[in-house]
């Protein structure tokens, strides 16, 4: 598999890979699979009729990894991709996705990835998804990920969802259904700048006894960018849920945080928090007393916040 320089640096940004990854993988570039590998325990097969993959992870396997990064380097490409993950009971797997768009042209480039996770009983999934845009063309870089999680009893899903920079327009939709004792932890990091806008919508349904979810979204809106964070947890049983929006605004950035809770069971215990503000003056002063300029101090604070 030969990669050009743009493909290489996009893959480095979104999946931290500089060569062919270990384990199972599919690398998609400009709407085509340019490399795919199944393993003894992970089978990746292309879908028929629509674009996308079915990924089967066998029950009871441990320490499996799946990389399915997507890069787009041609201006004007639009695609809708369906990837379904079938994770066997008791399996433990790390899934690294992510999409990088380099658009140097005048036309919009758009990737809408629909990821559905069917998580077996007591399985443990860690999912990492990073989005990144680059290129100086007037065409936009647009990403509209949809993530659906169906978590069986006792399973654990940990998601790291990051928008690094350079994405002009995004609507991120995440829906989850958790059964008895299932657990979901989400750490979202969103950075918008220039004229970008980002909408992030979560609906997490806690349907079984002792299901629990902890959804934390941190955002930084710079320049004239806009973010709307719409985080909802629904408690339909004796369960625990926590949702938190924590945001920094800079320049003319605007953020609308709408944390929401819905309790449909008297034993549901749900908490939400939301905070928006500029960088605290004392944080800047502290780092300036350590020799950083104000701009350097800002970068350190933001990098830490979005880590």
């Amino acid at each position, binding site marked *: 598999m030969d990669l050009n320089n743009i493909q290489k640096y996009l893959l480095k940004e979104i999946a931290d890979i500089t060569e062919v990854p270990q384990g199972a993988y599919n690398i998609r570039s400009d709407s085509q699979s340019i490399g795919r590998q199944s393993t003894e325990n992970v089978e990746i097969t292309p879908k028929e009729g629509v674009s996308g993959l079915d990924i089967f992870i066998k029950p009871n396997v441990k320490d499996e990894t799946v990389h399915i990064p997507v890069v787009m380097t041609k201006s004007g490409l639009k695609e809708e991709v369906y990837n379904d993950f079938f994770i066997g009971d008791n399996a433990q797997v790390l899934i690294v996705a992510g999409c990088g768009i380099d658009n140097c042209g005048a036309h919009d480039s758009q990737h809408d990835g629909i990821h559905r996770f069917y998580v077996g009983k007591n399985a443990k999934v860690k999912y990492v998804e990073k989005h990144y845009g680059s290129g100086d063309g007037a065409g936009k870089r647009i990403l509209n990920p949809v993530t659906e999680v169906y978590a069986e009893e006792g399973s654990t899903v940990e998601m790291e969802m990051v928008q690094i920079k350079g994405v002009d327009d995004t609507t991120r939709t995440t829906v989850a259904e958790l059964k008895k004792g299932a657990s979901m932890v989400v750490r979202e990091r969103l950075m918008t700048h220039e004229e970008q806008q980002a909408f992030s919508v979560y609906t997490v349904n806690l349907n079984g006894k002792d299901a629990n979810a902890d959804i934390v979204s941190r955002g930084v809106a710079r320049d004239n960018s806009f973010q709307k964070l719409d985080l909802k947890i629904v408690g339909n049983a004796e369960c625990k849920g926590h949702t938190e929006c924590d945001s920094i605004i800079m320049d003319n950035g605007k953020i609308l945080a709408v944390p929401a809770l819905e309790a449909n069971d008297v034993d549901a215990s749900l908490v939400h928090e939301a905070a928006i503000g500029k960088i605290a003056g*004392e944080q800047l002063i502290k780092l300036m007393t350590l020799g*950083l300029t104000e701009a350097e101090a800002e970068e350190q604070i933001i990098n830490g916040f979005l880590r």
Partner: protein
Amino acid sequence: MLKIKNLSFDVQSEGQNKEIIKDISIEVPDGKLFVITGPNGGGKSTLAKLIAGIEKPTSGQIIFNDTDITDMSITDRAKLGIGFAFQQPVRFKGIQVLDLIRIASGKELSITEVCSYLSKVGLCAAEYINREVNSSLSGGELKRIEIATVLARGSLLTVFDEPEAGIDLWSFSNLIEVFERQRREIKDRSILIISHQERILNIADEIIVLKNGVLETKGTKDEVLPALMGTSSAVKECRGVNN
């Protein structure tokens, strides 16, 4: 090292001009440990902030190693060699202890080097190095990390603003040891500590008493300390450590 000449600082409060620092002149030579004490509200912390550049004086001059720094930014003063330990350490979401100490040192310190600074302030390095400098840390832990960052900075002149404030007794004893060691290893560097604590006053070369924004007394420890004993300007460690 540091010369403060006729420094004044006024603020506007409810339409009135209030003088916080009134015509203060102080000289801190190389290799000396000075302690500034005095009643609360006397202007001590303001003076510390004026030296670090966090506040700008209404009039007067601050000279640091023959350079007039009166109008210099916080950053430029830090680069010249002025360090500042906050009375209430700042919390950061996401920035780890390791990051902060590396930023302070201005170098890509190795993990071992970072750990040595944490050990100096009595923290078990392995437990703390990857902790975020956020509200999960106690006041005493934050204070010790603050001191560690200042040690890593290694400034020519370090100003400590009430290092004893907000810490527990155990941390306080440890802190005194840190200052005693700093005192022994001072060489040509200088230290300025804002403190009421008798044990800190005891290691001072000179003591300055500020009251109502005016320099009331200055002199060597032996000249000044006896008269302060039993007043709020020199308290024993069993009092005031949680103020």
